[in-house]
């Protein structure tokens, strides 16, 4: 590949940028909503130390979507079924962090293997296969985009309603139980919401890269803030910037969207880490 080819792949579409943007406007919106909800739910994911669970759920979600592709039913439905099953199993059996990690470690390769099996059996367009693993939001049909956005909004509302008890349980489980928070119900509800949003993310950035929107923005926010409002707001902002920025950069060329999203969110994380480390040094020097 010559330098010229690379330039074309990255920026070849710049001359028609406005037209392309208009074409993918719906994808940008869907990406923005996912970024927002992913950033917010990521805060709880980090507080509950469940980054690994996100990965495990996404592989099962991939298996569900691949099964849907093979058996010819709706792919979004398939990924949601896969997600919910994984989230339920992890939520049910993995109350303690150690049990949880071993269950996820067992589930994840099984899900991924199952998904690959279904994809190999599938004879349809090969682009569909690849996109479930690494994502291609601009190729998602607009009827499905509506679904994905709708599910994200449901998750957002649900998350807001249980935010405080969920946060209490995440930060101080004993204290929360002592004060009458229904910790079991709150945890299972969280797993349900997490399963739904992971299923959405699988379609937008792909099963392998879900963490870039569900973990990285929150991890970045927690390096630079500690307040109960500052952390979720920053995480949501970082999520939106990663998702929207990634799509906007990607449509300038012909490369897939996901690497742009993962790169933007990673750069944000690096910057936040730098700021956090600097601040630590300053406060220690005082």
């Amino acid at each position, binding site marked *: 590949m010559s330098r010229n080819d690379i330039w074309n792949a990255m920026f070849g579409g710049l001359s028609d940028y406005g037209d392309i943007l208009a074409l993918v406007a719906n994808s940008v919106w869907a990406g923005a909503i996912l970024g927002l909800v992913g950033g917010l739910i990521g805060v709880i994911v*980090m507080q509950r130390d469940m980054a690994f669970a996100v990965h495990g759920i996404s592989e099962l979600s991939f298996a569900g979507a691949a099964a849907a592709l093979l058996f010819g039913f709706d792919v979004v439905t398939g990924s949601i079924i896969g997600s919910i099953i994984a989230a339920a199993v992890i939520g049910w059996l993995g109350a303690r962090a150690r049990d949880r990690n071993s269950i996820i470690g067992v589930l994840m390769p099984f899900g991924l293997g199952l998904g690959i099996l279904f994809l190999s059996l599938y004879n349809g367009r090969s682009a569909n296969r690849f996109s479930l693993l690494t994502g291609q939001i601009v190729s998602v049909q607009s009827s499905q985009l509506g679904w994905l956005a709708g599910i994200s909004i449901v998750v957002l509302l649900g998350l*807001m309603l249980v935010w*405080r*008890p969920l946060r209490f349980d995440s930060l101080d489980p004993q204290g929360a*139980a*002592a004060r009458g928070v229904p910790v079991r119900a709150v945890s299972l509800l969280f797993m349900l919401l997490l399963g739904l949003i992971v299923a959405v993310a699988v379609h937008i950035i792909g099963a392998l890269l879900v963490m870039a929107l569900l973990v990285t923005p929150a991890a970045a926010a*927690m390096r630079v803030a500690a307040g*109960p409002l500052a952390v979720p707001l920053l995480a949501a902002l970082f999520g939106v910037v990663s998702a929207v920025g990634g799509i906007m950069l990607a449509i300038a060329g012909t490369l897939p969207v996901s690497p742009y999203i993962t790169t933007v969110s990673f750069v944000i994380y690096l910057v936040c880490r730098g700021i956090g480390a600097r601040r630590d040094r300053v406060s220690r020097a005082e």
Partner: protein
Amino acid sequence: MNPLEIRGAALRRGGRTLWSGLDLTVHPGELIAVLGPSGSGKTTLLRSILGLERLSEGEIVALGAPVQRAGSRRIGYVPQQRPLPRDTALRGRDLVGLGVDGHRFGFPIPRRGTRKRVDALIDAVGGTAFADRPAGTLSGGEQQRLRVGQALADNPRLLLCDEPLTSLDLANQRAVVTLIDQHRRDAQAGVLLVTHDINPLLGQVDRILYLAHGRFTLGTPDEVLRTEVLTSLYGAPVFVLRAGGRLVVIGAPDAEEAHHHAGDHDHDHDGEGAHA
């Protein structure tokens, strides 16, 4: 109304009777320390009062109502100090805030009343100077003061404390005891405090519930912390020594050594027998 009444309580776990026939009334403004070796069901007693575990027998009436539901906001609860990870997304004041509105469902819109209450609680536990710093960077003593603030959020008339002094230095132990003592006087609250070291509480404690070997003894410190009483409770020779206003129990079989990893914390034990 007495803050707490326990009648005919028994606790059996795994075929073993931890205690039975326990009757305990905590009077308003009374501080009762719960002592005993590890595995004697001290924490389970507190958790049963909170409705988080079930007794094998007997009933508990807390603040005038039989315990039925899991958890209660009318009962204050101070857990053992476990240091928060440094990068916990929580400021000191939020630790207190969890007690004020952490249980509430619905859109998390900040309210002025909540903020005021949190400020008042922080002030009451002497935490104003450090409340805005990230909770993970606070010292164990500072975190524990704020946890007491969290427990006092609803001005409880019954306060349960599970090893609230563990891993605190002497000055912070004293500070936390003073906060608890002040609250029980101001609110006429009953306090049940699980501890493995009675010394920081000797000036404040009214009665002691000593659980060991499937039995228990209840009485004033002078009645319970005696060589012959503890010897018959343990069924083995145990000596209670007093020196310099402090009290040392020597020879208690399987006393709570689990809490005493060398160098783990810094309160002034004089060897292994320093805790009652």
